[in-house]
């Protein structure tokens, strides 16, 4: 019924004269209430919007709920919190606060953190043999014990529950040192996702009961979301939970796929459908999160999967057969499982940036001997331009990863932001791709020698490959980044559209917009954000490149939204461009902010940081310019993309005739 009303409004809108601007209206979710004198179908608040079953089909929101949190996790005083940086840049609203690189640790925490680093580093140096872990496809029980003793299983669990209570920044720093992929994934599956539900949504009783044992690693945790038919589309889980007749237990039945720690965990965060059958299938309220002990009964697991990389991490199928879970073991509220899952995943992603940076730093240390000592044509490798280029590229990439990771961690720790889900996704996408490229280039520098199993590149390359796939594939995350931005831009643009529709009431707005756009058609937006005033003067030029990028993104968002309206959801290639631009902007912000700080306070090698920042900003700016051009007025290859893809599908494969094919003799 509501949906019909929505469509009626759309039709009305199309009969209005200034169709171009009106198209914008289509992307404005119904919940914004009035628009241009029309009262929209309903005026639901964010909170109960999730109960609307039709939402999925009807607005820009529809894709977002599958991956995006609607309600922040900790909202003690939401009014004080700022919207996320990433969402705001889509409307050209740049949060200059981020140009001051965060310093969240006081002297004592800083010291304690740095005291922790050496033992961890020494432990990994002495006890962790990545090649052996890879070859055995197992982390030895002795090593696992050692990791537990060291205290790595309770990093973010508060001290009152026996953990270390590290904040995001500290967690990220420790994560850099977890230099083995299999160990890193085992630990991440345990605490970044496996037990995170308890930290975020657990009741005091649940925390008291489970966290102390999880903190010491006596109990290992796993996160059970993915199912054979439910991968990126996390909302479609089939595992069922039925309430027992006496109402005291939920009975879980179903199977979960590719569960990290599946075979070694005794604690599972499990997502299952609890909704009645008559609730429509697309409702987001049909899933619930449960804290399940292996000892509840009916829990079993398959053999460890034989994987491409992170082979030592224990990945299995996990089966639940009428597993009785006490009702008090529901995590969050019944029906809130989707929100719980999404927030757990969002809160875990940020640390990938520092882990990747850590891996790259180790790689660079490893290859440095080779480039100094290996001689070809009578010269050491270090004197060849093409090798130098690789070293420079790795340095820049590592710097970018670090800067983004600690900026995001700092934002999380500041408590000033609603959530950093989009920023964390950006960090994940950027760093997973950079580290893949970096390790591959390191192998390339070693040439044929690098391809041999005895070198660390083989294991490293296979290990880092997973990063682009798990915790949300980079494709899904790019859509998420772009849609979150576009969605929030749509909200903001509502007001602008209202004014632009009424140029006589708001002449100055109309004129300034017209002027702005002429500048943009010449690819020369007037730089009015004055970002350079927040950075060291050495970085003035780069600040302008950043500002250019921000303004161009804003312009492109307006143009593309006018063009596609709510159909933007289906323009995946455009969304990808938006995501790439936004990621580049965030990366530039992080890099400039950090380099400026380093230079101002006189950190060792700060002048090189300035060089790195300059180099990265130039490249990022070039990419932004091209992406915006392709978004706004082409030319782009999107049409060929869909044509060719269609043909591949029709022909079930490559379809061009063989080059030796002859049509005549």
């Amino acid at each position, binding site marked *: 019924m509501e949906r019909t009303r929505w469509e009626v409004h759309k039709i009305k809108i199309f009969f209005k004269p200034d169709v171009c601007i009106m198209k914008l209206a289509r992307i404005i979710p119904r919940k914004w209430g009035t628009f241009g004198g029309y009262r929209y179908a309903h005026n639901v608040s964010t909170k109960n919007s999730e109960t609307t079953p039709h939402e999925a089909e009807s607005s820009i929101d529809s894709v977002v709920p599958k991956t995006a949190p609607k309600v922040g996790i900790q909202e003690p005083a939401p009014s004080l919190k700022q919207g996320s940086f990433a969402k705001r840049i889509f409307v050209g609203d740049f949060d200059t606060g981020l140009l001051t690189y965060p310093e969240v640790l006081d002297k004592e925490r800083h010291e*304690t953190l740095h*005291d922790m680093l050496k*033992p961890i580093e020494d432990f990994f140096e002495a006890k962790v043999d990545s090649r052996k872990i890879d070859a055995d496809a197992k982390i030895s029980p002795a090593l696992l014990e050692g990791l537990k003793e060291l*205290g*790595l299983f*309770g*990093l973010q669990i508060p001290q009152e529950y026996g953990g*270390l209570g590290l904040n995001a920044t500290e967690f990220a720093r420790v994560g850099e040192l977890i230099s083995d992929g299999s160990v890193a994934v085992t630990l991440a599956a345990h605490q970044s996702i496996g037990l995170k539900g308890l930290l975020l949504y657990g009741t005091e009783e649940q925390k008291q009961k489970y966290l102390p044992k999880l903190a010491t690693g006596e109990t290992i945790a796993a996160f059970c979301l993915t199912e054979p038919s439910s991968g990126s589309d996390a909302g479609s889980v089939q595992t069922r939970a039925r309430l027992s007749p006496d109402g005291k237990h939920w009975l879980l039945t179903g199977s979960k796929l590719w569960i990290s720690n599946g075979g070694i965990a005794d604690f599972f965060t499990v997502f299952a459908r609890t909704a009645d059958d008559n609730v429509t299938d697309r409702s987001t309220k049909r899933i619930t999160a449960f804290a399940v002990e292996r000892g509840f009964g009916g829990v079993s697991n398959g053999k460890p999967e034989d994987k491409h990389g992170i082979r030592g991490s224990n990945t299995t199928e996990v089966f639940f057969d009428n597993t009785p879970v006490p009702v008090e073991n529901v995590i969050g509220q019944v029906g809130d499982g989707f929100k719980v899952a999404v927030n757990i995943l969002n809160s875990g992603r940020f640390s990938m940036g520092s882990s990747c940076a850590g891996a790259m730093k180790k790689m660079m240390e490893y290859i440095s001997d080779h480039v100094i000592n290996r001689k070809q044509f009578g010269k050491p490798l270090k004197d060849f331009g093409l090798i130098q280029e690789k070293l420079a590229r790795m340095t820049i990439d590592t710097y970018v990863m670090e800067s983004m990771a600690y900026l995001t961690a700092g934002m999380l720790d500041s408590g000033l932001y609603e959530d950093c889900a989009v920023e964390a996704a950006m960090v994940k996408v950027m760093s997973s791709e950079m580290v893949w490229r970096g390790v591959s280039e390191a192998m390339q520098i070693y040439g044929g020698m690098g391809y041999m199993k005895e070198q660390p590149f083989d294991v490293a390359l296979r290990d880092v490959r997973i990063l682009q796939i798990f915790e949300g594939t980079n494709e899904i995350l790019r859509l998420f980044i772009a849609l979150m931005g576009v969605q929030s831009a749509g909200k903001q643009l509502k007001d602008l559209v209202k004014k632009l529709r009424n140029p006589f009431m708001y002449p100055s707005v109309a004129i300034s917009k017209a002027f702005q756009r002429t500048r943009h058609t010449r690819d020369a937006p007037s730089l009015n954000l004055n970002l350079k005033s927040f950075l060291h003067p050495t970085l003035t030029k780069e600040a302008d490149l950043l500002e250019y990028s921000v303004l161009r993104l804003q312009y492109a968002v307006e143009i593309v939204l006018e063009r596609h309206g709510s159909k933007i959801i289906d323009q995946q290639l455009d969304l990808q461009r938006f995501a790439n631009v936004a990621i580049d902007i965030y990366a530039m912000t992080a890099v400039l902010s950090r380099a400026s700080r380093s230079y101002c306070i006189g950190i060792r090698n700060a002048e090189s940081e300035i060089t790195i920042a300059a180099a990265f900003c130039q490249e990022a700016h070039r990419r932004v310019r091209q992406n915006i051009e392709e978004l706004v007025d082409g030319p782009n290859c999107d049409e060929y993309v869909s044509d060719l893809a269609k043909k591949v599908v029709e022909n079930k494969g490559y379809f061009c005739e063989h080059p030796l094919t002859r049509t005549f003799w």
Partner: protein
Amino acid sequence: MALRALVGVKRVVDYAVRVRVKPDKTGVVTDGVKHSMNPFDEIAVEEAVRLKEKKIVSEIVAVSCGPTQSQETLRTALAMGVDKAVHVEVTGPEYNNLQPIHVAKILAKLATEQKADLVIVGKQAIDDDCNQTAQMTAAFLDWPQAVFASKIEKEGDGLTVTREIDGGLETIKVKLPAVISADLRLNEPRYATLPNIMKAKKKPLEKKTPKDLGVDVSPRIEVVSVEDPPTREAGAKVEDVDQLIEKLKKLGRI
């Protein structure tokens, strides 16, 4: 009778770091270089902690002489199980010329002050390789010494210590109080665990200066020059033994 132990820990350039000589040849580059506890001192700390776990020792005090950063090393010791720490602050040129004799005087003073029955130090520091501090400390205190220990056992009122000497082991008995220096095979030090590092923050760390202890740390020796070891020259291959002998003769080696 449970004993009180004093353990000396030195902050040194980490063993894995490739040291570089300063351009002015006054020493090695230490700025921005990873430092850690002298590995032999780690063994000393570990031994003290094990003695405490065996209830032979009741309290362990760690001491380190050096700049503010030495407190990091002390915190590592605290995290490994030491009860309290004393930082004797020595900085600048005085620190650059701090010699075993100074440290031995400081340790001797502190041993008296802290009523220690046992002083355990590493046999030598991996930066200057002096191997003198334990011996000098024993001399200043006029206590028996058991250096290069590879095994320590309590026996009656004294200790039975197995020492690593050239060509074998020597077992001696020492009366307490005594000074011991730890050799490589005495034990395998534990890793400071992260929860213990956090707890270590709450343990007491006392700051002192050599002056407080009445120790004069003015330099006794002067470093003239620190140089890199000569780089190894490239070798050459010879066809057979005759050629080898001929070549060696030519070089005047045989």
